[in-house]
């Protein structure tokens, strides 16, 4: 969340409430940010000198402090953007664990039944995201978030098919 807040502040000073709203809009598929989390993050960023309180607005409500990104904050953001994320290993996925356990403990038919049901669920979700992204006037952030989800669902689906082919090939080898 820290870097998203720093990124949002690049466009100009904002209050915590605005930042929470912007966070939820930019990452619509993610869990909405809790106010407490936003203010705690701002507190940490201020302590580290990455943001600074630049104004107070008391008009008609509680004290609202606006924050700006500092030069140090911009440097930290730059450094973060230059850092390559480690590719996720994906070997801890629940999907993989379940298929492996099903094959080991419950036999091929059980694993196949599970795979078929899982494929159905994945296909339905993929269609949901496709509907979302073909909605007229969809926000760019929603679009790339849907693309991301679809690409991962598609990868899972291809893996499901390959796994079944592998299981069939293994059986053929064993039974001759």
């Amino acid at each position: 969340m820290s870097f998203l807040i720093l990124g949002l502040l690049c466009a100009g000073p904002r209050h915590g409430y605005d930042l929470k709203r912007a966070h939820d809009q930019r990452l619509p598929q993610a869990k909405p940010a809790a106010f407490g989390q936003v203010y705690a993050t701002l507190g940490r960023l201020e302590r580290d000198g990455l943001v600074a309180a630049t104004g107070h607005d008391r008009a008609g409500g509680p004290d609202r402090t606006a924050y700006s990104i500092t030069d140090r904050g911009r440097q930290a953001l730059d450094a973060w953007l230059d850092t390559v994320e480690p590719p996720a290993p994906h070997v801890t996925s629940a999907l993989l664990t379940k298929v492996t356990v099903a094959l080991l403990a419950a036999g091929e038919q059980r694993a196949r039944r599970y795979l078929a049901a899982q494929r159905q669920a994945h296909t339905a979700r993929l269609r949901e995201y496709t509907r979302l992204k073909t909605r007229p006037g969809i926000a760019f952030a929603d679009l790339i978030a849907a693309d991301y989800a679809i690409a991962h669902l598609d990868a899972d689906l291809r893996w499901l098919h390959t796994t079944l082919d592998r299981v069939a090939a293994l059986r053929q080898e064993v039974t001759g």
Partner: protein
Amino acid sequence: MNGILYGRDMVKSYGRTVALRGVTLEVGQGEIVAVTGPSGCGKSTLLLCLAGILRLDAGEVGYCGERIDNWSETARAKLRRGAFGVLFQFGQLVAELSAAENIALPLLLSGVRRRAARTAAMTWLDRLGIPHLADTRPGEMSGGEQQRTALARALVAEPRVLFADEPTGALDSLAGEQVLGELVRVAREQQTTVVLVTHDARVAGYADREVALRDGVLDPSGLGLTGPGVTGAGLDGTAGGAAGGAGAGVAG
């Protein structure tokens, strides 16, 4: 069967290779159905048979409640110039003609006057966001532009059913998405029924329903599974619905 289009117990072979082993399916008015499966599973053959381009060895195909597989070649060709539109992966455009002329072609072949055909072509160029390509020849267009032009040509006669065989298979990912987005948008606006053949789950995601084929039969699991507890588990919860049965037992 009540859908706009149906195939019943369809069987089709090429020499000794059996492509369809008794496939039954029905497509509703305005529905977008994806036919999926690995290469060689018979999905393109299914599309060609439903569109009346290939003749069946056995079984039947019907459109609007009327059996059409036994129609003459001339009658089926007429259907394909009017009620049916067809879109392939590539290579449908006439290289010597401009986009507008290519799009107008089906209308001209149906006897529409040149000026009216040109006007209709311009309208479709507009609808698909490529009016600037009216006088451009296919060789000067990108793959995505060519496929939009081919889509406009498939839709210019305002068909009730559009058959699309891997329509974005030759395009890069973004261009493919744009063409699919346009195809689905226009189909929904026009209430056009679409039969969309693809091996790609992301493309199938644009459809209302998926029908999976494997080795020439419908495969309800989508994974080539026939074990207990698997057969009949229809995709999308449409078990026993419009997707129909696998038609086992038909000549193979």
